């Protein structure tokens, strides 16, 4: 009996493990930032360099950080989705313009529409490193208390917005209200 059951059990175990492995995307690096305080930054605004955009001012309500650049194909791909998300007015979306050209980035927003409440310009990519960014587009969700709640790597879709972001924003809102 064991002679047949054991190899069969091992085979099933291996098959299940490999099946799970098929579903996973090895290029997605889990972020160690989740559940930890969001890295602070104060960067010049893309539109007006004399106006700083600082994380310290964003406390009190959940907000989104979207890392984008004009050289990033996926950013172009997700742009319409970002506009639709912004139109829902659920949480302010801050853009982090990563290693980009100022004029080109402004033209992009003028032509395609601007989903961002504000855009911070990270010309040297230092803030991006603090946030563990490795490939645009990336979208972070930050809670009212400044904790990183979620990170999505790859173009945003309405499906991911609905299933991953909205429930977390809802939960963050409720816990923030209880805290108050």
């Amino acid at each position, binding site marked *: 009996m064991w002679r047949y059951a054991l190899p069969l059990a091992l085979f099933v175990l291996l098959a299940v493990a490999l099946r799970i492995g098929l579903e996973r995307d*090895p*290029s997605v*690096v*889990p972020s*160690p930032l989740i559940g930890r305080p969001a890295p602070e930054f104060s960067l010049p605004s893309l539109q007006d360099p004399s106006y700083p955009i600082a994380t310290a001012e964003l406390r009190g309500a959940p907000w989104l950080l979207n890392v984008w650049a004009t050289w990033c194909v996926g950013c172009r791909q997700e742009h319409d989705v970002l506009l639709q998300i912004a139109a829902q007015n659920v949480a302010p979306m801050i853009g982090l313009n990563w290693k980009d050209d100022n004029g080109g980035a402004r033209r992009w927003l003028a032509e395609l529409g601007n989903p961002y409440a504000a855009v911070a310009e990270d010309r040297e*990519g*230092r803030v*991006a*490193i*603090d946030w563990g960014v490795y490939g645009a587009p990336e979208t972070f969700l930050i809670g009212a208390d400044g904790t990183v709640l979620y990170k999505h790597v790859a173009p945003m879709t309405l499906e991911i917005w609905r299933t991953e972001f909205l429930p977390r924003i809802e939960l963050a809102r409720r816990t923030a209200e209880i805290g108050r």
Partner: protein
Amino acid sequence: MILRRFVIGLALWCVIGGTWAFDSEAAFEDPVQQARYERLNRELRCLVCQNQTIADSTAPLAADLRREVREMMQAGRTDAEIRQFMLERYGDFVLYRPRMNATNLLLWAAPALLLLIGGGAAVRFIRRRTAEVDEDDTGSGAGRA
């Protein structure tokens, strides 16, 4: 003739190709520091092109990470502090040589476990076979000898 030129060209390319570096920054004046810088770069993974270290990669992010390493070294930070800086931002994946932790413990233990299982099975198998052969010997030994 053409073939000979091609072979010479290829040989030259191999020699020169090996010395090309994309790190356009000036080397450290102290060769010890330069060696340390290169060693640290070889320990850190480029997260864009994941099978390369930041020493090998031309990706802009790799250049940025090399800059961070250089600046931290100039600020007098230790190797452990530099590694910690990367770990806090990119997680264990940034280390080209993985550390042992709770998630990959099974992977580290697998060779020993497999050896134990295989060895155990082999021992059992050999014992059983020996016992069978012994039985054969005592049973019909006279006929064979």
